[in-house]
């Protein structure tokens, strides 16, 4: 669609209406903020921030309800990670087996470089075992670059226990719904 | 000895010679042009000095006109240099020899 743009009238080309409009808007905001004292600024360290659901903070590994590592070292997240922040060392043939019975293996080492991570959430999206989640942490600090590379223990400790949201079950339900969709008409 | 007309005229003459030297020695058209400005300025200085020591404002009027004409002259000259540069891709007098025998 092409919107026809009217030529400016003589009065408008003086810029005066625009200037007066700007004057009104800025004055209103200035006086409002000065008198009613309701700025939108959040005074962060003093006022705690409220993290909304769906917020994408730092990615951490989670344990299942039994306290076992959910990650099975499939390396999908390592593969999908756009800034290549994740590095997984698989256990190999001689490595330790998984600490839960319904999985074959768990990572020997799992590192996320929080300096590289862009909090995009693709690792969470791709994980088949629901082992990695973006939590609500947003201010990560460290005194050295090496401190910002979080290893497996730290990630598991920070992630805590997560019984799972059964992402795949939901996906299955959705798929089924879509399959039955044309019939319902 | 008090500073008089001679002193100013000497400065003016030396400045004029410097400008002339620049015109002769330098090879960049723009620098030659600047040297010309230097010579004009030397003339200005002499005129103002004459005006001061002869109790007469005519010299200063001359300078006033010279400055005006110089401004016009610089504008036109620079436009010519830019046009020349567009044609020849050089601002070096040794590359501008189409009039040479």
């Amino acid at each position: 669609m092409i919107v026809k743009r009217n030529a400016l009238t003589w009065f408008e080309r003086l810029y005066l209406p625009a200037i007066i409009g700007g004057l009104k808007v800025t004055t209103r905001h200035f006086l409002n903020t000065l008198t009613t004292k309701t700025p939108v600024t959040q005074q962060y360290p003093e006022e705690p921030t409220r993290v909304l659901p769906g917020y994408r903070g730092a990615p951490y590994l989670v344990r299942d309800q039994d306290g076992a590592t959910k990650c099975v070292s499939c390396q999908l997240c390592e593969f999908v990670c756009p800034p290549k922040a994740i590095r997984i060392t698989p256990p190999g043939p001689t490595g330790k087996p998984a600490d839960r019975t319904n999985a074959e293996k768990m990572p020997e080492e799992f590192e996320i470089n929080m300096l590289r991570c862009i909090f995009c959430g693709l690792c969470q999206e791709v994980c088949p075992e629901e082992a990695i989640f973006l939590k609500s942490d947003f201010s990560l600090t460290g005194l050295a670059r090496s401190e910002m590379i979080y290893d497996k223990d730290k990630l598991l400790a920070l992630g805590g226990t997560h019984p799972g949201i059964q992402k795949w079950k939901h996906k299955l339900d959705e798929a089924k719904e879509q399959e039955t969709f044309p019939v319902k008409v | 000895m008090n500073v008089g007309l001679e002193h100013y005229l000497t400065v003016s003459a030396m400045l004029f010679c410097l400008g002339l030297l620049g015109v002769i020695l330098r090879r960049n058209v723009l620098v030659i042009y600047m040297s010309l400005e230097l010579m004009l300025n030397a003339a200005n200085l002499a005129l103002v000095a004459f005006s001061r020591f002869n109790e007469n404002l005519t010299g200063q009027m001359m300078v006033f006109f010279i400055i005006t004409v110089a401004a016009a002259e610089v504008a036109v000259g620079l436009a010519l240099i830019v046009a020349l540069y567009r044609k020849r891709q050089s601002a070096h007098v040794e590359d501008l020899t189409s009039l040479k025998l």
Partner: protein
Amino acid sequence: MAWLDSLSPQTQFVFFTLLKIGCVLGLLLTLVAYAVLAERKVSALIQDRVGPNRVNLPLIGSIPFLGQFLTKLGFWHPLVDGVKSFIKEDFTPGHVRKIYFWLAPAISLVPAFLVIAVIPFGSTLGAQKMVIADLNVGILYTFGIVSLGVYGVVLAGYAANSKFPFLGGIRASAQMISYEIAMGMSVIPVFLVVGHLNLGKIIEHQAQNGWNVLPIFGGGFSAQTLLLVPCGLVSFVIFFISALAETNRLPFDMAESESELVSGYHTEYSSMKFGMFFIGEYANMFAGAAMMTTLFFGGWTLPFFGLDVAPVAGEWWKGLLHIGIFMGKMLGFMFTFMWIRWMLPRFRYDQLMDLGWRRMIPLALANIILTAGVLALTNR
């Protein structure tokens, strides 16, 4: 004060001039620092934010009410900003032209301070006139110095030896040269009316005949005063717009338009060298505001309570009050500069040039002729 009287007049003159230079420079630098804070606070208020309110000094911060208030006001931010500018690494990129790279910030800083020298910022204190240099060609001097300010920008653009600063420098210089013409032409009506180039004389004239921008105070309503109202207004509007363009403020900050040229001619600068550009910009704003106050808004005079005459001996409070009035007017203009920054979007470059050459300059010329006509007809 006995030792002062024992000095020869020349020594006294030198002493008082040095004293005035020191006071004005110190005050100006402080004002510049706080203008940066004011700019941030005004921006914040217009955008519904709170602005800088963090820096807390250890001892003063613990004074019960005042300390907290000053912190909330952001009172210590300029101090900390200054310290930060000094102790930051002074980085010189490898590809720059070294000499000009060092020269440019200084050149952009000096002219703004030199302009202040001829501004009468008060009437008299004791026997001293409150102006550093009472020049007869005051306004010509001002325009000469202002025209030198272009070099800082051009050299900064040239020295950086990379694309964006270069474009910024070229743009800024073209813009400043163009608007200088409009600016110079816009003040000619003022001198036609006043008949003198000395800034002190201009203020005297305004005290007797009403401010140049709106000559309705004092002097009675003659036909001439009424006819001169549009001339003064047009002059002031052109001067104001040109001042915005000269100081590279929005809506004319083509030189450092962040969205296209990174930050224009000072892209390659850091730490104190950048700080000097910054101080230069704000000092230029102060110079522009002071010029507008002097030329159009009556300088240190106020048409009420007999404040428009120089104080007689012993009325030193009046002299101080006059300085206060001048500062008040100047700060009002500074606030307007900041306000306009959030009011109007940036002009496109061709619009800027169009406004300068095809609107402002013909309008200023017409204004000169109109003023001359009015003065000739009303038989002055």
